[in-house]
């Protein structure tokens, strides 16, 4: 049985208080999760970080309420995080009421939905909170009944004393328990005895979703709310020169038209303060339709903004970054990337003597992979409500990281953080885009300017053409073989606009004696941001396609070949800092091999491709089965194997993996944003092709490695390898390799 300490240097992670009207409330500190990483000493943190967040409430009439501490964007944390509390608290899940916790202050710590980290970072503190509350309830019962606490048991929110036959609900003891001191140490349940966690529970907001309740940012409003839209330049690298609003100010409902600066000159941007356009041309009116129409008639002249300067805040002080002003096109992007790929690059990792190995190789295989900019296309376009007055601000909207945007709002509005009330709504998708805060700052500034509550609405066109895209990437892979077809060296050189994609310490690093990883970057005014499994989503696509070709060149089965490399990485690893666990990596490959019937004659009607990847602390492998439908290759079936440690909510986890598979197939086949003279060539779903219902596989079988390892990420890890599994299956189907995403472009060329 695991034992956890509930304090650190005498500062408690947990706190208990009496509920008005009877009952108890357990709160826990955001820094409990920091101790999980052991990288930050909680004692070094400011005292006010010890403010308590995310809590359990048990009323005297036995209503048990658990608050979800982290933002929800479809990853199921609103259900799965409270499940963890309920497990250790030992209550009947069906009777638990779940509510969204507060996200209104940076003091609460990094409440962040992203990096597939929600469950991982809350696993321990939520278990501790539930176990501590149960422990205190037991103490209260033992005092009331005057029996030893060791003789008490709990089940589904009831306390029992078998010897005397006494029993009572948690609610009966909640008020007394609130006065019991927090236990110094709590005993956690054995994973094998879980009754809530590892059992499928329905989405707690399911009924609200299917009945259309106002859950999302765009649904939020208040009496007197005005609608605002920003007319951003038609091209990256442009800015507003002048505008004439005289005509639209006469249109019904239009209140104001003005320009605003997002950040003042020299503003130190934090990592997620990415801006694409700084001069905001704003139209404000009564209704969305009125503002939409007025904006179309707004007369604006635009001009190139030339090179600009961003001031970036950083741990080692601020630094200045020059953003080039030239209007960029996809054709010139590719030409420039070719030029950079031929130049010397930044060394990221080197093992052995790759130069000599390549020089002496009997054979070298070299392949280059490309992938375009991608728009996130969350179904709910970007938006935010703000009501800012002289002394306070109310901000309501969909955001992945309230704790990150609040300091920015505080600086921009010149208001202390505790005067900013921040409410995070359910998000209609995020995929990384909603970690960035510009819409929140824009809404706040507009509200302050017009002195009214304002809802900033991005149309789909605004959303798709604003920037913060997945970058355009390229990578050239080389493999060297000796005369006996043994792999003796591996080289990857990758670049992108404006960042390179390479994770230098991932597989096959550690498995090849001579290894070289290099990266290069080209600056751009097209802004980029996190996109479901950043960089991994390209790396996996390229590397896992290349390994398929390497296996073929060696005359080996692609799964056996990977397993051989992993065996080497485990038994005699090359180099240092290998990020992955070779055993867990091998396990998902073995599981997908077994479950897909890899190599079995019964599957010979399929063109099959396999790929695996490690990212966000988890492991995923897929086998993609393609058939021909109307003469075109079609992904009919996918078998997936995932190791994310303990699976909290199995059916929801299956849903997440299936979603990653569908999303990945869609982006691999169709996802693409191109540019001409700075103008994005797609601005809505008329031209930006999203995977549709009829294009999704008929079947996606999901299997989890069963273990008792503390849970790791799930929202991202199954996404990257599906790209390569599709590419490798397409090779079998079309008898040619697919190197350039989206693959549908090459398929169309062929037909």
């Amino acid at each position, binding site marked *: 049985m695991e034992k956890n300490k509930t304090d650190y240097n005498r500062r408690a992670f947990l706190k208990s208080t009496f509920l008005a009207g009877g009952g108890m409330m357990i709160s826990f500190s955001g820094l409990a999760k920091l101790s999980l990483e052991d990288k930050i000493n909680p004692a070094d943190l400011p005292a006010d970080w010890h403010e308590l967040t995310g809590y359990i409430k048990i009323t005297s009439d036995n209503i048990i309420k658990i608050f979800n501490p982290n933002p929800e964007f479809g990853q199921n944390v609103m259900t799965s995080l409270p499940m963890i509390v309920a497990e250790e608290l030992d209550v009947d899940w069906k009777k638990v009421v779940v509510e969204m916790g507060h996200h209104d202050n940076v003091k609460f710590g990094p409440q962040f939905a992203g990096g597939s980290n929600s469950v991982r970072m809350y696993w321990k503190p939520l278990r501790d909170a539930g176990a501590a509350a149960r422990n205190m309830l037991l103490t209260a019962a033992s005092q009331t009944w005057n029996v030893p606490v060791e003789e008490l048991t709990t089940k589904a929110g009831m306390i029992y004393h078998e010897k005397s036959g006494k029993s009572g609900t948690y609610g009966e003891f909640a008020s007394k328990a609130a006065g019991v001191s927090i236990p110094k140490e709590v005993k956690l349940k054995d994973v094998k005895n879980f009754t809530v966690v590892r059992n499928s529970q329905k989405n707690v907001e399911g009924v609200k979703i299917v009945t259309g309740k106002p859950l999302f940012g765009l649904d939020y409003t208040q009496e007197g709310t005005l609608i605002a839209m920003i007319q951003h330049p038609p091209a990256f690298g442009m800015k507003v020169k002048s505008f004439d609003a005289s005509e639209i100010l006469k249109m019904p409902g239009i209140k104001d038209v003005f320009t605003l600066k997002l950040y003042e000159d020299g503003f130190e941007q934090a990592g997620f303060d990415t801006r694409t356009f700084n001069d905001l041309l704003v139209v404000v009116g009564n209704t969305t339709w009125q503002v939409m129409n007025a904006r179309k008639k707004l007369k604006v002249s635009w001009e190139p903004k030339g090179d600009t300067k961003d001031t970036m805040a950083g741990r080692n002080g601020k630094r200045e970054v020059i953003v080039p002003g030239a209007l960029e096109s996809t054709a010139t992007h590719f030409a420039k990337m070719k030029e950079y790929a031929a130049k010397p690059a930044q060394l990221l990792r080197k093992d052995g003597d790759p130069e000599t190995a390549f020089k002496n190789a009997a054979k070298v295989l070299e392949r280059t992979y490309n992938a375009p900019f991608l728009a996130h296309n969350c179904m709910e376009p970007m938006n935010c409500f703000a009501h800012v007055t002289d002394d306070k601000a109310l901000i309501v909207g969909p955001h992945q990281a309230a704790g990150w945007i609040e300091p920015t709002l505080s600086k921009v509005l010149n208001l202390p953080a505790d005067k900013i009330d921040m409410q995070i709504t359910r998000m209609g998708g995020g995929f990384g885009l909603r970690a960035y805060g510009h819409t929140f700052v824009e809404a706040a500034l507009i509200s302050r300017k017009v002195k009214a509550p304002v809802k900033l609405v991005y149309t*789909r066109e605004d959303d798709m053409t604003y920037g913060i895209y997945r970058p355009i990437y390229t990578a050239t892979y080389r493999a060297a073989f000796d005369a006996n077809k043994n792999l003796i060296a591996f080289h990857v050189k990758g670049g992108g606009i404006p960042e390179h994609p390479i994770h230098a310490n991932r597989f096959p690093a550690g498995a090849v004696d001579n290894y070289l990883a290099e990266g290069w970057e080209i600056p751009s005014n097209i802004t980029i941001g996190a996109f479901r499994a950043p960089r991994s989503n390209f790396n996996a696509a390229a590397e896992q396609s290349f390994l398929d070709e390497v296996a073929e060149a060696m005359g080996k089965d692609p799964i056996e070949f990977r397993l051989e490399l992993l065996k080497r990485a485990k038994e005699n690893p090359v180099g240092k800092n290998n990020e992955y666990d070779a055993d867990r990596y091998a396990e998902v490959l073995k599981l997908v091999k077994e479950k897909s019937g890899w190599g079995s004659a019964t599957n010979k009607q399929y063109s099959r491709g396999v790929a695996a990847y490690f990212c966000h602390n988890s492991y995923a492998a897929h086998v993609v089965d393609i058939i021909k439908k109307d003469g075109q290759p079609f992904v009919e079936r996918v078998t997936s194997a995932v190791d994310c440690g303990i699976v909290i909510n199995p059916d929801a986890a299956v849903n997440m993996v299936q979603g990653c598979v569908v999303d990945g197939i869609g982006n691999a086949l169709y996802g693409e944003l191109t540019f001409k003279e700075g103008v994005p060539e797609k601005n*809505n779903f008329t031209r930006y092709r999203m995977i549709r219902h009829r294009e999704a596989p008929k079947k996606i079988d999901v299997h989890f490695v069963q273990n008792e390892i503390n849970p790791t990420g799930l929202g991202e890890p199954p996404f990257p390898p599906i790209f390569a599994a599709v590419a490798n299956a397409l090779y079998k189907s079309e008898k040619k390799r697919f190197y350039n995403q989206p693959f549908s472009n090459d398929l169309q060329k062929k037909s």
Partner: protein
Amino acid sequence: MPVISLNVNGKTVSVDADPATPVLWVLREHLNLVGTKYGCGVAQCGTCTIHLNGNAVRSCQLPVSAVGKNAITTIEGLSENGDHPVQKAWIEQDVAQCGYCQTGQIMTATALLKSNPNPTDAQIEASMSGNICRCGTYLRIKEAIKTAAKQM
């Protein structure tokens, strides 16, 4: 602006709006029925799907002036308490991830089942391909439609 009379979810309501306003925005901003979602504004994503006399239509492309006496049903009017068989099937299959597109998906699915109570997989795929789900819940949507078909 003229006052326009509408039949929404079985009730007669009056709205004061520009006749060209799409029904989507009338529902969301004049009538506070926000279950009908804005996704693209050009009838490509299906999040704004409502029923007009029982048929699925994209409310972002339907001017309020064109509705006349035709009956509008929104997700809020599909059932009193979310107990329409399609809504129940959505819960049973635990379809939603982010959930934003699901009201539109449900309205399209309900109209499909009304005209075709036992659709084949191919018919479901054809009918549902106008509704985008970025989270990729298509397989569960199909299962939920089949579950609902058995209950209806």
